[in-house]
């Protein structure tokens, strides 16, 4: 590589210093389009928008290149060692108070670099697609402004070197999502969906914030109590703290290492140091809680945050409604990038995640349940975008299962492949809508294969990929997760993972079923008589080109999932390309998991391992094939020509179609309660008790006293004089008595 590219002008130093440009370019684009959009005209608007994202993409490629270089390393401010395969840049303090500090620090390692490429690459394609899709929309400039802003925010999320800066991106993408879902704001329902998304995300953000604060406390406590010789008690760590603050990822990494080193459950014979992971913290606000307990709480709060952003149980309800936004937005934000932020977050703090098996098991369970429930709901949906939305929720559930079983690279691989094929399908759905007068009901489509060949072929590839048919990328990434569930040794929770494995297989089967249903009903058969337009038309090249590229990527991404490499540090099994590439990122986590014996690789030897892998693959493939086949059979042959759905299943179908009434349940349980509480409090406490009784009551009491005293103030001058006389008499008598006695 080094020979291919000259050092100059792309020296690693230069790339490092220019990291900010990756974010700044789309931000600038957003600014230009936002402020001068109207004046620029459509041509210039999309030129600016696409160019800015494209520029970021090129820069991201440079970063990727730099990270392939073995000499790329950064100085870790929190410990004496260096971090390999990473770039970092610090642009000064953002804010600091007391002992807390946050700086504008960027950090690019292989995890973020991969994510960067996905965001800017898919983002660029979607920008390109949008130029055609949004052609006739009045808010053209506004749309691209929001979209560029979104990309900038997502890049901030990915490049952040501390939780606080990550939170900026985290909230920023939520904000853009709000704006874009409610893009056609004059429709009340669409604006409402945006609001729902934002508020649901805010519940997650609440979890995120609480978790961050608890982490700060944890770092402080560890610094105070850690024995000599641990990373946290070193001098470097304290300088790092004053330089970058406690929430920088390197600081958290050092915290994780320290905690792991003092885990006595792993090494019972060791003499107990001052700080013990399972012992209670002695001073400070966390007094009385153990490190392990607090860490689990932190992760659970992060899980709440991630559930909000990544649409997991119980906060997934916003994502299907988010389909109210323009379809490219759904593709970019609600399929490819933003919703995977939760997964990214857990990958980022993987070293903390592995220290709490309970939290991991919870993540896996939540992911699995989400995957199942979303898949079941997707069965009965007729809206093309809704089905894709539920499938996104379901696939995100798979990613969470991957996190939960400790296979971070697999989860992340699924993020990448999912970004490709789901974006491809969403864009395909957009193309379908574009060519069919914005019809979204799949029962009123059909037979599009002949009219929209490009769309239909790419959609088919996407469908096969998500279904898990062998040569496509979805198979490898999904199966890697399922295999992990089967083999990972999560201390204390192995049976749970095994149960999840079977549930995961069911979810995979469901996925195959409804995705095939979606494809068949939309593209195969005859055109539905209920269709809006008699003939669909294929979209223009800016729309089909991204489809083709993404479909190609969905196929090509298998390269990441193939178990190609056999490396010395993993003697038992061969590594996939992705695992090997991300090894520097997840190394710490794997190491800590092994050291504390909380998360172990399988103890199987190579032959057992290989056979298990192959049987696992075969099982998954068979299930996908059978389920997809049944679906295809049913929808091709049986229910195509207006045949009724079996009556016995009708209530079930209705139940699923209404999304298991989860929205209604939430409405009843929380929203109505909160509104009722607010109204009640306002009426009875604020208006009645505080204002009427306490405030006006005081005024009225004074008024009443005044009226009582009015009786004396009767206007009769002689009565007043009598009062004076009486006072005189009493005074005189008193004085006399005083004098005499």
């Amino acid at each position, binding site marked *: 590589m080094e020979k291919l590219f000259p050092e100059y002008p792309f020296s690693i130093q230069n790339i490092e210093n220019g990291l900010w440009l990756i974010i700044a370019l789309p931000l600038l684009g957003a600014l230009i389009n936002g402020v001068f959009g109207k004046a620029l005209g459509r041509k210039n608007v999309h030129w600016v928008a696409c160019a800015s994202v494209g520029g970021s993409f090129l820069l991201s490629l440079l970063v990727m290149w730099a990270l392939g270089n073995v000499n790329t390393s950064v100085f870790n401010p929190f410990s004496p060692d260096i971090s390999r395969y990473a770039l970092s840049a610090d642009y000064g303090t953002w804010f600091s108070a007391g002992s807390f500090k946050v700086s504008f620090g960027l950090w690019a390692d292989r995890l973020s670099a991969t994510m960067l490429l996905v965001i800017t690459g898919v983002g660029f394609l979607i920008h390109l697609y949008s130029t055609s899709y949004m052609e006739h929309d009045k808010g053209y400039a506004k749309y691209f402004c929001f979209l560029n802003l979104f990309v900038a925010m997502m890049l901030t999320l990915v490049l952040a070197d501390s939780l606080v800066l990550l939170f900026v991106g985290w909230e920023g993408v939520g904000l853009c999502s709000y704006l874009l879902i409610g893009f056609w704001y004059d429709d009340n329902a669409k604006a409402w969906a945006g609001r729902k998304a934002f508020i649901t995300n805010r519940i997650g953000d609440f979890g995120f914030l609480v978790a961050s604060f608890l982490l700060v406390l944890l770092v402080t406590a560890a610094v105070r109590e850690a024995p000599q010789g641990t990373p946290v008690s070193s001098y470097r760590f304290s300088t790092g703290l004053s330089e970058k603050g406690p929430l920088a990822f390197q600081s958290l990494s050092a915290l994780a290492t320290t905690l792991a080193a003092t885990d006595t459950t792993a090494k019972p014979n060791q003499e107990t140091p001052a700080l013990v992971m399972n012992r209670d913290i002695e001073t400070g606000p966390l007094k009385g809680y153990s490190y392990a307990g607090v860490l689990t709480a932190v992760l659970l709060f992060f899980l709440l945050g991630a559930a909000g952003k990544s649409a997991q149980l119980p906060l997934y309800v916003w994502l299907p409604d988010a389909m109210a936004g323009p379809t490219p937005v759904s593709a970019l934000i609600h399929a490819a990038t933003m919703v995977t932020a939760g997964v990214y977050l857990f990958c980022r703090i993987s070293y903390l995640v592995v220290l709490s098996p309970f939290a991991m098991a919870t993540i896996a369970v939540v992911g699995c349940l989400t995957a199942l429930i979303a898949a079941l709901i997707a069965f009965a949906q007729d809206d093309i975008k809704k089905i894709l939305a539920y499938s996104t929720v379901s696939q995100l559930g798979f990613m969470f299962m991957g996190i939960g079983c400790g296979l971070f690279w697999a989860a992340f691989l699924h993020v990448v492949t999912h970004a490709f094929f789901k974006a491809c399908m969403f864009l395909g759905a957009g193309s379908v809508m574009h060519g069919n007068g914005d019809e979204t009901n799949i029962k009123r489509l059909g037979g599009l294969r002949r009219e929209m060949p490009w769309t239909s072929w790419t959609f088919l590839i996407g469908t096969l990929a998500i279904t898990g048919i062998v040569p496509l990328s979805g198979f490898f990434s999904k199966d890697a997760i399922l295999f992990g569930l089967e083999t990972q040794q999560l201390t204390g929770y192995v049976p749970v993972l095994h149960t999840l494995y079977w549930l995961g297989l069911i979810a995979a089967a469901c996925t195959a079923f409804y995705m095939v249903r979606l494809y068949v009903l939309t593209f195969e058969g005859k055109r539905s008589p209920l269709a809006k337009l008699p003939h669909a038309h294929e979209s223009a090249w800016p729309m089909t080109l991204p489809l083709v590229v993404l479909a190609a990527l969905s196929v090509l991404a298998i390269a990441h999932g193939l178990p190609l490499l056999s490396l010395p540090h993993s003697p038992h099994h061969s590594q996939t390309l992705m695992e090997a590439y991300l090894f520097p990122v997840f190394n710490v986590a794997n190491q800590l998991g092994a050291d504390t014996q909380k998360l172990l690789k399988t103890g199987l030897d190579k032959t057992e391992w290989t056979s298990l892998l192959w049987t696992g693959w075969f099982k998954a493939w068979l299930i996908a094939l059978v389920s997809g086949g049944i679906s295809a059979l049913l929808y091709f042959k049986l229910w195509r020509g207006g045949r009724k759905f079996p009556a016995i299943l009708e209530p079930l179908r209705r139940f699923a179609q209404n999304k298991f009434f989860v929205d209604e349940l939430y409405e009843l349980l929380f929203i109505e309660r909160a509104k009722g509480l607010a109204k009640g409090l306002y009426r009875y406490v604020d208006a009645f008790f505080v204002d009427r009784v306490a405030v006006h009551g005081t005024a009225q009491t004074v008024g009443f006293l005044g009226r009582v005293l009015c009786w004396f103030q009767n206007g009769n001058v*002689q009565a007043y004089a*009598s*009062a004076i*006389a009486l006072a*005189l*008499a009493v005074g*005189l*008598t008193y004085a*006399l008595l005083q004098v005499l006695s």
Partner: protein
Amino acid sequence: MNVEIILFFVFSVCTLVGASLVVFANNPLTSAMSLVATFFFLAAIYVLLYAHAIAALQVMVYAGAVMVLFLLVIMLLPLQNTPLPLRPSPARWVGALSTASVLGALIYASLQWQKSLETLTPTTQTTTMSQETLMRFGNLEEIGLSIYTKWLFPFEALSLLLLAAILGAVVIAKARI
């Protein structure tokens, strides 16, 4: 029992009778005329107490100026329904009782005081004042000296008060200015 005391007694009775008439006469005109009489008797008592200047002032200011004013007002106002019979009310009962107790207290106090004066401090008796001093004591010269030296500031303030009173009276009494 000398003439002074007899005279004092006589004048006192007259004063009280006059005062009672002022208070209890039905007709304000009767009241007013009784008031003039009362002022005169009081002036006489002042003379007995060697307060010649004050006695003169009493006659001039009170029995003269003030009473003329009163009479003028009585004449000015068409008081056909002059008798206003007493109407008892709680306030009046309280007033009457209070007045009675005040009177009792005052009388008791004066008698008590007289007693203590006689027993305790004979030196402070007025008898030590020589006849000559007494003659000079209450005359205009002495009072004038006192007013224009020691009491100058209150005196000037008083003139201001009178001025204010004149203006005030004009402002209040005139229908339109």
